[in-house]
């Protein structure tokens, strides 16, 4: 694939039933145009159905369904853009307990400073 047409996404994988700790897994998403982190995760889920992520968007950048951690920062995934040629690392948002992969439980907020993944 032409590097200019590809976005590299390193996603956090974690299944509480089988994993002691999470790990990162790399996927390549073909795109000639920038995509949001949220759209990228949905593409990764299409490429590898076992990878879980939230897919319902509000198209407003306000509801927080898309909250994740991208390159070490907590962000709204739907308004965080990644350009072709770039690499992004996506982990669970740090303020909520992880259910699986990058999906968090919005009803279980963590105390500030706690790492969601551990």
């Amino acid at each position, binding site marked *: 694939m032409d590097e200019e047409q590809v976005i590299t996404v390193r996603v956090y994988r974690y299944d509480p039933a089988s994993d002691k700790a999470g790990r990162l897994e790399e996927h390549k998403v073909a795109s000639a145009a920038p995509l949001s982190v949220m759209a990228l995760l949905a593409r990764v889920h299409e490429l590898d159905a076992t990878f879980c992520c939230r897919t319902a968007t509000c198209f*407003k950048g306000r509801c927080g369904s898309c909250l994740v951690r991208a390159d070490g920062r907590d962000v709204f995934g739907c308004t965080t853009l990644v350009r072709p040629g770039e690499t992004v690392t996506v982990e669970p948002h740090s303020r909520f307990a992880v259910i699986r992969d990058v999906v968090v439980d919005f009803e279980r907020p963590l105390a500030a400073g706690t790492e969601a993944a551990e």
Partner: protein
Amino acid sequence: MSGAAKYEADVLVVGAGGAGLRAALAAAEAGASVILANKGPVARSGVTLTAAGGLQAVLHPDDSPELYYEDIVRCGYGLADGDLARTLAAEAADRVRETERYGARLMRDAAGGYALGQFPGMARPRNVFVKGGGIGLAAALAAACRRQGNIRVVEDFFVTGLVKGGGAVAGAAGLDLKGGAPALLAAGATVLATGGCQWLWATNDCPAGTTGDGIVYAYRAGAELVDMEMVLFYPSVIVWPPSLAGAFVHYEFLAPDVLDGNVYDRAGKPVLPKPLPRRDEAMLFLARAIREGRGGPHGGLLWYVGDSPQAAANASRLNTLQYDYIRAHGVEPATDRIEVAPGAHYLLGGVHVDADGRTSVPGLFAAPECAGNFDGANRLAGNGLTATQVFGARAGLAARRWAAGSGARPDEAAVRAEFDRLAARLGGKGGTDVAALRNRLRAAAQEGAGVGRDAAGLGRLAQVAAEVRAEAAAARVPAAGVFNQQLVDVLELESMAEAAALVAGCALARTETRGHHVREDFPARDDANWLRHTTARRTADGPAFGSKPVRP
């Protein structure tokens, strides 16, 4: 799947959008215990969040419920049931004002009155925006539900089907995604508030998850559906750039007194006439221009307000969350050209209800978008959210009354059958490419049941729907423990495929053109034969399609 968890309440509400939240509040305030189950996180999923936040209500001194009622019926080309339209018009103002009691905030003008706007099709200024748009409304109602002691909010709970007891619906079964286990939600009455199936169309402006689950579950339980061919195509859904695809820009804002812009073809020619036509006519102007090859490089037309003095004067209209979202993607709506096309926006048809949300199955109620017969062949802007409040509240109350007298309990056998059906989907390696099947189905719906339809295309859609449904039904996914998204994907795909067959069947039955249902092979409106609802009911041999009169 033995030992499944069981929750019990007087009333079960499935779906926590505007309609479900309001239904839960109404039932709970009347004294019922309520379970409110939602397949995603509450106030973080569903169509209500994406709404711009316009509500219609009779709040202007020169307006009246009669004028509002007439607008609904005219706009719907005579297919809205009269009693429902009258109820909506009469109760809109009270229910809309009441949203403030739950913590939502309606926009005011400088004098402190409601800031009322007038969109195409409205005889009087009747549109009031809620602050924060649909999220402002949903978040306030959700907080009110969580404050209510007798509402148990169960989020990330995917309902898989209804369960009956003694012929009446007595709750639902589903999958607790967080815990990973199936569970039974037993209730004396069940309100479906699961929204529409717009995700079925490749071009739409709705969140993932609008897969028609509740409508299909109601149909499987024996409920009558009406007008499933009627899907509203919004004129200006963004198709490019890809990161914004699925968001929309207001075609209403192109009106001379708002931003006075237009939608332009490749050669720079404006596509929309002024004054702006209503949605159904406007989307046809765009669809025809695209079909004539006047579209841009990505198949759309260019929404543009950048050269209008009026737009500069009214630039604040673009200072909302919705347009900030577009800016966050590097596009400036005030000056950039945005490529748009008509996309599925709202399901006009759905489960047949009376003014209390009662379906044709005892114990089963349906509220707003999944309900079918209060709009007709087109819908006024702002009617969707208002309907969630009016009919959500009515369905919640009626469900509470029914539950008080019903005592229905799920039949053991029905529950076991539903859990067995779920268990049978597990244990595979996940070899079926669900995403590919979904894309195939969505392309067929867009192609065959998009803006222009004919018998051949609808027949092809029915064929693809049957094939996809068979493949989805045969798919086995891994038993993945918590958050089994693969299982959800496959069950949603089954719902979509079943809904697609119903859309195709109803669209084939309606041999005329009316509102958003445009039959290229039957281009004329046929009031002599078709001032009627199309109907769909499940039989042992598959769906039976027919028609019935519109209630006066």
